């Protein structure tokens, strides 16, 4: 049913269209935040046409697209949007956008970095506590009726005094580091470049960081350089007692190798909110008590989603008023 076609015919021709191929969770949950006097949404997912045909027919003059992990902006998509000048994502991550192609064509990109830092940091530290102190495993133990039968649960490991390696010290990594200090952890980090104003010891490679850490928390974005950066070598350097927490992107870790290390007891545990092929989780992990599994949502709160939607709308309104973008992604 081509109701979007009818609607755009009846709508004011003044309002520029923002293409949405598939709705990001933010839009699904807070659609009322996306009503603006400066733009209207062109909802591709409501059409029965195949995407390329829809774009060819209706998106020829579209200057902005709101994307998400579920609807990546590839070179092929960009090719079908000849008027495209702006790609917006409601996420902090931009790995689902072909940045090289955008840069080549002078297409601006904005993301929602910053709005998820605090909630993400709370979640990352929460997962670390959970793995070290076996919170979820013990909860299962109680719910399975084992406490009266088998007695007390196993000992966990203290947080205080642990050396925690933060991989990537942007807004998110810094928020994690601050919280870890309150628990008496020693914070170490690796980043693309050393940050002179930061009090934590810097390690120029993830391997060196892992070798000197008890835990690793992944706080960086997914790029060509960071894909599978955490591999068997890094995990073995982290060691048998080592714990890894990932709420960034699944593909930063070589998942197959991590699963092998976990199954063989070569690392101590993992707290994972993201996976290489969501929603698929490697079966072997289901049998492990030293792993906490989260379905890519432990970061999200209504507050961060509202802030993300406001940032998206703010960027769009700025764009359509020829004002500076609020959160442009700077190309490196």
């Amino acid at each position, binding site marked *: 049913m081509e109701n979007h076609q009818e609607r755009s015919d009846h709508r004011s021709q003044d309002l520029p269209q923002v293409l949405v191929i598939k709705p990001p969770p933010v839009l699904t949950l807070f659609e009322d935040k996306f009503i603006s006097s400066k733009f209207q949404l062109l909802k591709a997912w409501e059409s029965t046409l195949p995407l390329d045909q829809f774009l060819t027919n209706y998106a020829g003059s579209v200057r902005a697209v709101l994307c998400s992990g579920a609807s990546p902006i590839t070179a092929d998509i960009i090719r079908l949007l000849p008027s495209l000048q702006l790609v917006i994502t409601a996420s902090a991550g931009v790995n689902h956008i072909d940045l090289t192609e955008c840069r080549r064509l002078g297409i601006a990109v904005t993301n929602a970095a910053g709005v998820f830092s605090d909630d993400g940091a709370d979640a990352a530290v*929460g997962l670390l506590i959970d793995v070290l*102190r076996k919170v979820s495993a013990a909860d299962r133990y*109680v719910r399975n009726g084992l406490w009266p039968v088998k007695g007390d649960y196993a000992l966990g490991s203290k947080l205080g005094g642990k050396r925690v390696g933060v991989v990537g010290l942007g807004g998110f990594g810094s928020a994690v580091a601050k919280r870890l200090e309150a628990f008496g952890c020693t914070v170490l980090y690796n980043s693309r470049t050393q940050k002179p104003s930061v009090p934590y010891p810097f390690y120029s490679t993830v391997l060196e960081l892992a070798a000197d850490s008890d835990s690793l928390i992944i706080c960086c974005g997914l790029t060509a350089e960071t894909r599978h950066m955490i591999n068997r070598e890094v995990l073995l350097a982290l060691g048998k007692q080592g714990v890894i927490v990932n709420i960034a992107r699944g593909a930063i870790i070589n998942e197959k190798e991590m699963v092998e290390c976990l199954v063989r007891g070569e690392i101590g545990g993992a707290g994972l909110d993201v996976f290489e092929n969501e929603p698929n989780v490697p079966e072997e992990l289901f049998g492990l008590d030293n792993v906490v599994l989260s379905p890519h949502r432990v970061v999200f709160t*209504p507050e961060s989603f509202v802030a993300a939607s406001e940032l998206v709308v703010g960027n769009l309104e700025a764009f359509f008023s020829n004002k500076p973008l609020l959160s442009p992604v700077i190309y490196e």
Partner: protein
Amino acid sequence: MGYHQKPQYLSKTLEQDLLLPRVLVLRSPSVPSFFFSKSHLQAHFHLVDPLDSPEPTHSFLSRHAASVLALLCVASTRVSSETLSLLPSLKLVVASSAGLDHIDLGECRRRGITVTSAGQVFTEDVADFAVGLLIDVLRRVSASDGCVRARLWAEKRPFPLGVKLGGNRVGIVGLGRIGSEVAKRLIDFGCSIAYCSRKEKPSVPYPYYSTVSELATNSDVLILCCSLTKETHHIINKGVMEALGKEGVIINIGRGALIDEKELVKFLQQGQILGAGLDVYENEPHVSQELFAMENVVLAPHAAVYTLESFAALQELVVGNLKAFFSNKPLLTPAQLE
């Protein structure tokens, strides 16, 4: 990550052993082994242990413990006035758990028996655990983990959003060492702290409320960090939970009987509070069955102190207190008996 104890095979002679100070050990058989490091203690003391004998404890104590000066109470083994009456020479009770409510402190005071506590060996671990429980409840970590393991991720998308931690008004019930450590951590997560305690603490920067009800009225989260006494029994009751409200969360790392557990279950069942993270219960190890089905509740098996590190520190402290006692030196962690 298991707890492994390397046995120390000691080559002391019988004479050497008999020259060591005698320490009576009281432990119920169900107490987990990590609380009692027998070989560690035997290096320094001659242990008198009723569990080594087939005799009933009562007659064992009458026959063997009349001259014992020091008692090691393992975990929450009860030390009643009846037990104490069988130990006429007793001068010291060394506790090895965070709480002291299983020891008849009134009787110890009356008899002039000193009690040493576990000091701060558990404090940080308990505080860490309280924060872990809170994040878990607010962000449904354990519940989601269960869903993923049940292969429900693809089916259940999208999941309900979690609750933000920052901005919450956290009410600490009992601002002792544990409560202070909890507060310190939650400040860095963006929470605001208020407390109630037996007495206001002027040096503390957080707002004070003289009753738990008032604290609950002004809080989004209550964290129970106080000891169990006659006054604090069921201190979290229907009225307090009503004051806390539908968005409220309760975290209990104190003692189960601080909460009227039956009322708590009702409130949770009726959605009258948002959720709870519980490490302790009124009738451990039995947990109210109704809680098992609830996704907004996190259940822990009295494990807030359970780390390798805290038990290693505990053993050192226990030995340290006993050695100080037997050499007439100041005790490391004497408890205030009220």
